[in-house]
């Protein structure tokens, strides 16, 4: 009797079943995708070889490829996917606009300018790459934010328009640097295309601590992004500091995006596609949307990177390009579907 009552309690919310299913399905898919990704490549392995490669310390070919190359690459891909999709989710919430994405509003290209600056102008200081990308991303975000705020409130259209302009300016600066230092461009190109080629445990270690700390803040951010959905006025009437929340959320998404860019280069559209798909599946409540997007982002990047490095064998396509092939048309589809009404939710 009590059990029945309890189960009814759980399923009363119209989306509860879907949510529960998704939160079981997504982690399972992430695990399957990672195992698949460990198996597939220029050299293919069986499940047993993969497991052996991970858990035994014998110096076999499987060990060297699975442990030294593929595993760190997959883990970094997941971190990148998680960071970008949460950044996108939070930005969409802040700007109340489904088109907000670190790439769309210029945050990624802001990070790009600084990163290219370090890579081509000061190649000796490559160590500062992550910090430089943070600074670039944050400056771009602040420019977009300040220029699109009028009298204490932010209009979604304005923020996207300013983002377009910031993107153009950053693109111009990046191109300018590449022309002026054309002899060093070779190192930059794959990075600009956004890829995970050649990343290993070192990069993973560089990025994981930042990522974990930032994700801790994400847990506190959900309350803020949730209430913004009710609209600025309603949030204010509920005693919420709307502008303070916005600033916090923008800073947080910038950190997340900068983190991803510093390790994987200009990977776009993850922050756009994933949250939007999750929203279609489980609704727009950020309490569920943020973790679902994180899982979805991890899954998308894992799958996309596996395809990028194996399908066009022996050539490797940067995962950023592959994602642009998925994300670009999706973006156009969103614009087509939404017409002029860009109200989020």
């Amino acid at each position: 009797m009590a059990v029945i009552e309890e189960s009814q309690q759980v399923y009363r919310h119209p989306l509860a079943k879907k949510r529960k299913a998704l939160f079981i399905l997504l982690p399972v898919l992430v695990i399957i995708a990672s195992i698949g990704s460990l198996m597939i490549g220029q050299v293919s392995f069986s499940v047993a070889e993969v497991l052996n490669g991970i858990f035994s310390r014998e110096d076999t070919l499987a060990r060297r490829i699975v442990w030294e190359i593929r595993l760190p690459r997959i883990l970094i891909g997941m971190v990148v996917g998680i960071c970008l999709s949460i950044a996108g989710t939070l930005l969409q919430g802040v700007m109340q606009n489904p088109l907000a994405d670190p790439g769309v509003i210029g945050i990624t290209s802001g990070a790009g300018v600084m990163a290219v600056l370090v890579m081509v102008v000061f190649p000796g200081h490559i160590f500062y790459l992550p910090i430089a990308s943070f600074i670039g991303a944050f400056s771009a975000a602040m420019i977009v934010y300040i220029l699109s705020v009028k009298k204490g409130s932010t209009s979604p259209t304005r923020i996207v328009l300013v983002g377009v302009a910031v993107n153009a300016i950053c693109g111009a600066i990046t191109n300018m640097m590449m022309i002026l230092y054309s002899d060093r461009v070779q190192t930059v190109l794959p990075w600009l295309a956004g890829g995970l080629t050649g990343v290993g445990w070192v990069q993973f270690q560089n990025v994981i601590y930042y990522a974990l700390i930032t994700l801790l803040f994400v847990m506190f951010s959900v309350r803020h992004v949730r209430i913004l959905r009710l609209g600025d006025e309603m949030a204010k009437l509920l005693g919420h500091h709307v502008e303070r929340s916005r600033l916090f959320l923008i800073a947080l998404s910038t950190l997340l995006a900068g983190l991803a860019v510093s390790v994987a280069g200009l990977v776009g559209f993850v922050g756009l596609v994933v949250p939007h798909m999750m929203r279609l599946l489980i609704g727009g409540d950020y309490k569920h949307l943020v973790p679902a997007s994180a899982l979805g982002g991890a899954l998308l990047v894992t799958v996309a990177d596996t395809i990028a490095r194996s399908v066009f064998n022996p050539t490797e396509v940067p995962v950023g390009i592959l994602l642009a092939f998925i994300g670009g048309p999706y973006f156009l589809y969103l614009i087509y579907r939404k017409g002029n009404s860009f109200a989020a939710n």
Partner: protein
Amino acid sequence: MLRTESIHYEHDITKFQLNNISINIKQGEIVSLIGPNGSGKSTLLRVISQLLKSSSGEVYLDEKNVRQMKKREIATTLTMLPQMNNHQLDLTVRELVEFGRHPHNKNNLKLTKEDQEIVEWALEVTRLKPLEHRLLPTMSGGERQRAWIAMAVAQHPKVLLLDEPTTFLDIAHQLEVMELVRELNEKYNMTVVMVLHDINQAAQYSNRLIVLKRGTIYYDGSPQCVLCKEMFATIFEIEADITLKSGRPVFTPIRKCSNHCTSQCINLNDYKEKRKE
């Protein structure tokens, strides 16, 4: 309970002004603001609820200046329901109502036991308990309006400001909302200040009417006092017929005033003197 002291406000672009608005609303009153379009009714509510900043003048809540109150503190005493709320929000009624506890509940996404009890109570009062797990976009306009009111109720304010709570509702749902407002006032002693378009409804459900025109208060008094031919001529520039139905005045518009009628306009002071005579 709620007092404003010579509020001035000017809109940056339209230059619309509120002039010298001083009102004093007592605990337990239902006050309706009426007036033609663009007379500043909604603006006044927004200034009171701090959505708009007045250029001068003070607002007091429980004799405390709101300038010295924290946002959270204001939100637990006074709240407002703006006219247009997001219709596409895919929250359930219960989830929406739970947002009402936001100013009371500082850190968590989880509600305390007390919060939950108040949410239950808000759902009961607004008779939304059977619909608590419905998503807002699947509900009728009237139900949705009640859900938003329930959220404001869960905020447990002493003063509730409503901006045209019945607009876009059919007459049955309008009455339902008005009855709910009356119940909140009578049973739970909530002070209500609302903007209403329907003057007869305002007269029927309020203890007091405040009439605004061009950002200035012209009349302030009981419905019986305020609803008179001069008021309709001055404020709305129409001729109206006024009858009493079970103690409440009811008006019927007859025709738009001719020029001759508007030239007879009287201002508030003349009106008060006339009353005294």
